[in-house]
C-alpha cells in the first residue's frame, strides 16, 4: 500500500553523490596539472577497493547489494580519502585508508547514513598516527616525473629524502620551531608560491570552483563553507595581527593544506555533520578554530582531520540545542 505523496522529485542519493564527484573534478584536474598526475592511479585503486569493500560488507551484513553499490557514496568516500592523502603513498597505504573508511567507519556503524564520524577523516587520522613519516611526504609540486611517481606508488621504491619535500604548512612549522626565521623569510623560499605553496593554490581554486557548483546545485548550503572560511580567516587573522612574524597570514591558511577541500567537501558531509542552520555555522566554525589551533600549536602540520572528528562528537549536542523555531512558534505576531 502506497500512501501520499504519490509524486516525487526526481532526486536520488545517486544523483547527489554524482554531483559531488563532478564537483571534485576541477580540483582533481588542478592536482594532476600542478602536483602529481599519479593521483589518477590512486583514485582508481581507491575506487576499486571501496566498491569491493562495500560489497563484501553488505554481503556480511546480509543487505541487498545493488542499491547500496549504485548510490556512489563509497566512491565519494574513496575519492576524498585519496585527495587528503599524499599522492606518492604506496598503493597499499591507499587501500588501507579506504578500508578503514568503508569497513570500520561506515559499515561497522551501520552503513550509509549511520556513521557518526567522517569516514575520510578517520582514515586520515588513523593513517597519520600509524604511519607518521609516510603520511608526511608530499612531492614538490610538479617536479617529479610520472615514472618516479608510479615507482613510488606501485613499485615500492622509497628514496624519500631525495625526492620529497614538506608542504608549506610543514615547512613553516619546522622553520618556526627551529627558531631564527620568520614567516616572511620562510615564505620567500622558492618552494612556496604566492600564498599556500606553489601549485597548491591552484588546487584550492579548483576546489573552490567545485564548491560553488555544489552550492548552485543546492547540494550544500552556504552555512558550512562560509562559517569555516570566515572562522579560519578570523582566528588566523587575529594571531597574524598580533605577531606577523610568528604566525602566517589568513590567506596562507586558507590556500594551504586541505582548507578548501575541507570547506566544501569534508566539513559539509551531511551524515556526520550538524544539520540545523545555526548548528551548521557552529559546527564549521568550531572545526576552523580547532584546525587552526592544531596547525599553529599542535603536533601535526594539518589539523583539519582531527578538528572534524572532535566536532563530529559534538554534533548531537549542537543539533539538539539549535533547533530552529517552528512555524507559528516564533513568538510575537499574535494580537
Amino acid at each position, binding site marked *: 500500500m502506497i500512501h501520499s505523496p504519490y509524486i516525487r522529485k526526481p532526486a536520488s542519493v545517486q544523483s547527489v553523490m554524482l554531483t559531488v564527484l563532478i564537483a571534485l573534478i576541477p580540483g582533481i584536474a588542478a592536482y594532476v596539472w600542478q602536483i602529481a598526475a599519479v593521483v589518477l592511479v590512486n583514485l582508481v585503486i581507491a575506487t576499486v577497493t571501496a566498491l569491493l569493500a562495500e560489497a563484501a560488507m553488505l554481503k556480511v551484513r546480509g543487505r*541487498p547489494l545493488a542499491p547500496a553499490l549504485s548510490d556512489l557514496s563509497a566512491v565519494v568516500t574513496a575519492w576524498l580519502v585519496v585527495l587528503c592523502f599524499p599522492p606518492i603513498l604506496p598503493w597499499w597505504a591507499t587501500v588501507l585508508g579506504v578500508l578503514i573508511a568503508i569497513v570500520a567507519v561506515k559499515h561497522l556503524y551501520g552503513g550509509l547514513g549511520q556513521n557518526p564520524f567522517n569516514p575520510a577523516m578517520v582514515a586520515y587520522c588513523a593513517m597519520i598516527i600509524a604511519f607518521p613519516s609516510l603520511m608526511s611526504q608530499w612531492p614538490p609540486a610538479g617536479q617529479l616525473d610520472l615514472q618516479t611517481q608510479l615507482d613510488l606508488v606501485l613499485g615500492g621504491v622509497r628514496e624519500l629524502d631525495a625526492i620529497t619535500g614538506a608542504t608549506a604548512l610543514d615547512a613553516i612549522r619546522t622553520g618556526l620551531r627551529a627558531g631564527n626565521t620568520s614567516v616572511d623569510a620562510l615564505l620567500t623560499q622558492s618552494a612556496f608560491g604566492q600564498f599556500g605553496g606553489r601549485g597548491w593554490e591552484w588546487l584550492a581554486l579548483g576546489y573552490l570552483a567545485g564548491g560553488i557548483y555544489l552550492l548552485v546545485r543546492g547540494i550544500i548550503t552556504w552555512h558550512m563553507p562560509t562559517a569555516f572560511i570566515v572562522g579560519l580567516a578570523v582566528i588566523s587573522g587575529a594571531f597574524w595581527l598580533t605577531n606577523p612574524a610568528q604566525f602566517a597570514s589568513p590567506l596562507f591558511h586558507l590556500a594551504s593544506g586541505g582548507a578548501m577541500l575541507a570547506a566544501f567537501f569534508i566539513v559539509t558531509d551531511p551524515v556526520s555533520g550538524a544539520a540545523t542552520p545555526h548548528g551548521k555555522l557552529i559546527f564549521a566554525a568550531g572545526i576552523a578554530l580547532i584546525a587552526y589551533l592544531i596547525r599553529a600549536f599542535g603536533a601535526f602540520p594539518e589539523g583539519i582531520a582531527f578538528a572534524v572528528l572532535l566536532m563530529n562528537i559534538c554534533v548531537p549536542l549542537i543539533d539538539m540545542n539549535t533547533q530552529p523555531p517552528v512555524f507559528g512558534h516564533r513568538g510575537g505576531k499574535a494580537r
Partner: protein
Amino acid sequence: MLTALLIMTGIAIVLGAALGYASIRFKVEGDPLVEKIDAILPQTQCGQCGYPGCKPYAQAISNGEADINQCPPGGEEGIRKLADLLGREFKPLSEEHGHEKPKSVAFINEQLCIGCTLCIQACPVDAIVGAAKQMHTVVSPLCTGCELCVAPCPVDCIAMVPVGETVETWKWKYPVIELRPAA
C-alpha cells in the same frame, strides 16, 4: 599533619552537610515505584495476575512477590515497559495467567437477562447498570473487558465482544521497509 587533618575534616563536614541537605530537599514522598508500576498496568482490574486488582499487583511486583509477566491484558508491550522500569530482563507472558487477547467488552443479551444483579456486583468498575428484576446493560465505554461478570451470570447471557476498529481508533501502520533480496 594538622592542616591535612583539618582539611579532611572540613571536606567531611561539607560533604556530610550537602548529603544531609539533599536527603531533606529531595525526600521522596510515598512509594513512587508502586505508582509507576500501577501507571503501566492496564487497569482492567481483572485479577488474572492472581491479585485483586492492578494496584495490589503493582504492590506485589514492587515487594518482589510477583513476577512482571502475569498481566495478560497488558500484553508483551506492558511486560516490556515493566522490564524497562525495573531494569529486569523481558520474559514472555506466563502461560498460567492467561493469553493476550484482542480488547473486548462485555455484552448482555437482554432477551435472556433475568435481572439478578450478580454481574453488577462483580463488575470492578461499576460499568453495568440495572436493578433487581430489571434488565441489565453494559456501559461499553466504561467496560475494561475484565470478564469478571461472565462467570457469575446464572443464565450465561454475557458474552465478550471484540471491539471493532472504527475510524476513531484506526491506526496507521508502521511503514514497512522494503529490502530487496541480496543480489
